[in-house]
C-alpha cells in the first residue's frame, strides 16, 4: 500500500471523522455516566433522533418520507438537539426520582420503541429504504478538501464540547454531580436537589448524543435503520468510554478514537476470512471487542486515563 496514495489519505480522513463522531457520543455519555452515574442503556435512541431530525429537516422534498423543510444545517442541528433533550427530559422526569436501575430499563425500552418507530413509520422516516440526498457541509469543495473540511468541522465540535465538559467538570456543578453520584442521600442532606442535577446532566448528555447523530447523517449522506442498531451505537460507545476512562473527558476522546481504529482494523481482518466464515464476521468482531475490553480492564481497572479530581479552581499546585 502506498501511504501517499489518495485512497489511503481518504481512509485516514474517514477514520478521523468517525472517531470524532464517536468522541462526541462518548463525551455525551461521560456527562451522564462519568459525571452523574446515570446508566443510559439506550444511547442509540438519542443518536437516532438527532440523525433523523437533521436528515428530515435539511433534505429536499421527497415522496418517501416527511421533508421539504429545507432548513440549513446550522438551524437543523440545534432543533435535533432540542428534540433529543426533550425526550431525555421526559424520561428523566419519570425515572430519575426513583432510585436504582429504573433509568437503565427505561432507556432500553425507549431505544426499542424508537427503533420500531423508525422502521415502521415510513411516512416519517422512509423505513428500511432510508433517507438519501442528505447534504454534507463543504461537499462543493474539490476532493480531498471537502472531506478534510468536514473532518475539521467535526474536530472543532469535539474541541468545543471537550472545553465545555472540562469547564463543567471543574465547576461546582460538576462537583455537585459527583457528590450525588457517590452518595445521593448525603448530597440531598447538604441541600443538593438530586433530581434536578441528574436531569440536567441527562438532558445535556442526550443533546450531545443527538449532535453526533446529526453529524453522522450528514457524513454518510444517507440514513437507514442501521443508525438505531444497539450494537454499533450503544454497545460500542460504552466500550469506548470504559476503555478510555469514564469520568475523564480526555479518556472519552481517546477511547473513541482507539476503539474505532481497532474496530475498523477487525473489518480488514475478517474480510480475509474464507467464504463460509464471512456471515459470521459480525459477531466475531463483537466478540473480539468484548475480549479487548476484558484485557484492558484487567490491566487498567479504571480505563486508560482514569478519573481525576479537577485541579482546584485557581489554586496553585503545592510546590515541592
Amino acid at each position, binding site marked *: 500500500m502506498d501511504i501517499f496514495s489518495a485512497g489511503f489519505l481518504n481512509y485516514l480522513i474517514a477514520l478521523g471523522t468517525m472517531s470524532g463522531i464517536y468522541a462526541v457520543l462518548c463525551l455525551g455519555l461521560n456527562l451522564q455516566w462519568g459525571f452523574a452515574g446515570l446508566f443510559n442503556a439506550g444511547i442509540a435512541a438519542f443518536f437516532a433522533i438527532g440523525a433523523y431530525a437533521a436528515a428530515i429537516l435539511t433534505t429536499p422534498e421527497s415522496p418517501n418520507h416527511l421533508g421539504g423543510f429545507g432548513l440549513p444545517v446550522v438551524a437543523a442541528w440545534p432543533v435535533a438537539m432540542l428534540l433529543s433533550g426533550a425526550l431525555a427530559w421526559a424520561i428523566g422526569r419519570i425515572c430519575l426520582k426513583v432510585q436504582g436501575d429504573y433509568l437503565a430499563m427505561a432507556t432500553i425500552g425507549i431505544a426499542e420503541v424508537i427503533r420500531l418507530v423508525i422502521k415502521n413509520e415510513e411516512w416519517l422516516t422512509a423505513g428500511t429504504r432510508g433517507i438519501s440526498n442528505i447534504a454534507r457541509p463543504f461537499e462543493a469543495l474539490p476532493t480531498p478538501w471537502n472531506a478534510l473540511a468536514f473532518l475539521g468541522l467535526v474536530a472543532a465540535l469535539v474541541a468545543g464540547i471537550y472545553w*465545555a465538559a472540562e*469547564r*463543567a467538570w471543574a*465547576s*461546582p*456543578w*460538576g*462537583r*455537585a454531580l*459527583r*457528590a450525588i*453520584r*457517590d*452518595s445521593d*442521600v*448525603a*448530597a*440531598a*442532606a*447538604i*441541600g*443538593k*436537589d*438530586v433530581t434536578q442535577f441528574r436531569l*440536567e446532566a441527562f438532558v*445535556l448528555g442526550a443533546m450531545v448524543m443527538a449532535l453526533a447523530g446529526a453529524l453522522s447523517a450528514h457524513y454518510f449522506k444517507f440514513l437507514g435503520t442501521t443508525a438505531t442498531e444497539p450494537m454499533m451505537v450503544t454497545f460500542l460507545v460504552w466500550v469506548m468510554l470504559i476503555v478510555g476512562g469514564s*469520568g475523564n473527558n480526555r479518556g472519552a476522546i481517546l477511547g473513541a478514537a482507539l476503539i474505532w481504529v481497532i474496530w475498523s482494523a477487525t473489518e480488514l481482518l475478517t474480510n480475509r476470512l474464507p467464504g463460509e466464515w464471512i456471515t459470521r464476521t459480525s459477531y466475531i468482531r463483537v466478540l473480539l471487542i468484548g475480549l479487548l475490553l476484558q484485557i484492558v480492564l484487567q490491566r487498567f481497572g479504571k480505563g486508560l486515563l482514569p*478519573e481525576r*479530581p479537577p485541579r*482546584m*479552581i*485557581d*489554586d496553585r499546585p503545592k510546590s515541592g
Partner: protein
Amino acid sequence: MIKVEHISKSFGGIRAVDDCSLEVVRGSVTGLIGPNGAGKSTLFNIIAGLFPPSAGRVLLDGEDVTGWPAHRLFHRGLARTFQIAQEFSRMTVIENLLAVPPKQSGESLFRAWFAWRKVIEEERGLRVRAREVLEQLRLTHLEREYAGNLSGGQKKLLELGRTMMIQPKVVLLDELGAGVNRTLLGELAGEIERLNRDHGYTFFVIEHDMDLIARLCDPVIVMAEGRVLTQGTMAEIRRNEAVIEAYLGTRRQKTAAQARR
C-alpha cells in the same frame, strides 16, 4: 426547634418507630440514647427528610415539614451526619467540604461557562472556610486525599466538617463518636459546646458514649422499641429503673437467644 408528634414508621413488618413524640428545644444540646434497634436512626432519617413517616408530623421551627425532601430541610437550616459515614468517596477531602455551601453560582452550568470569574472568586472564599474546618478537625494533611481512603473515624469527622461549612440552626449527629479517637472526641465536644453557647446552634445527638452524653446533653431522651421511654437530665436517667430495664432487657433477650442456639 424540632417537634415530633406521634411519628410511626414501619419497614415491612417491623415497627421501627412507634407513636413517638418528643421535642428538641431551641438552644439545647439534646441527647438521644437507647439500645440498638430502638429506632433512633430511623427517627433522625424521618426528621431529616430521608423518608416520610408512616404516620405523624414533624415541625421545624413551628412549621409543618412532614414529608419535605432532605435538600429543602437543609436550606431551612437543618444539617446532619449519618451513622454509617456517607462520604463522597471519589472526591478529595476538601472537595467534600467545598460541595456543601448552598447557592454557589458555579452550580449553574450557564454561569460556569459564561461567568467563570465570579465562580473563582466565590471559590476562594469557600476554600478559606474549608481549610479552617480541616484545621479544627486535624485533617489538614489529608486535604487532597480521596475521602474513600479515610479511616472510619476520619470519615465521621468529615461529616461533622460538612455541617461546619454553613451556619445551621440545628444539627443532628448520629453516633459521631464511633471510631473517633478519644482525645479528639473530647476536643470536638468542646467545639460543640462552643457552637451551642456562642452561636446558639441547637444539637440533637445520638451517642453510645455515656460520659460524652453526660458532659454535653441536657435533656437526654431515652428510646426503646420505637417509643420514648423517658426524658430528663443524665443524672435522673441513670437512676431510672425503666431505663436500666430497657438496656438490661435487651441484653437478657440476647443472652437468652444465644443460650437457645
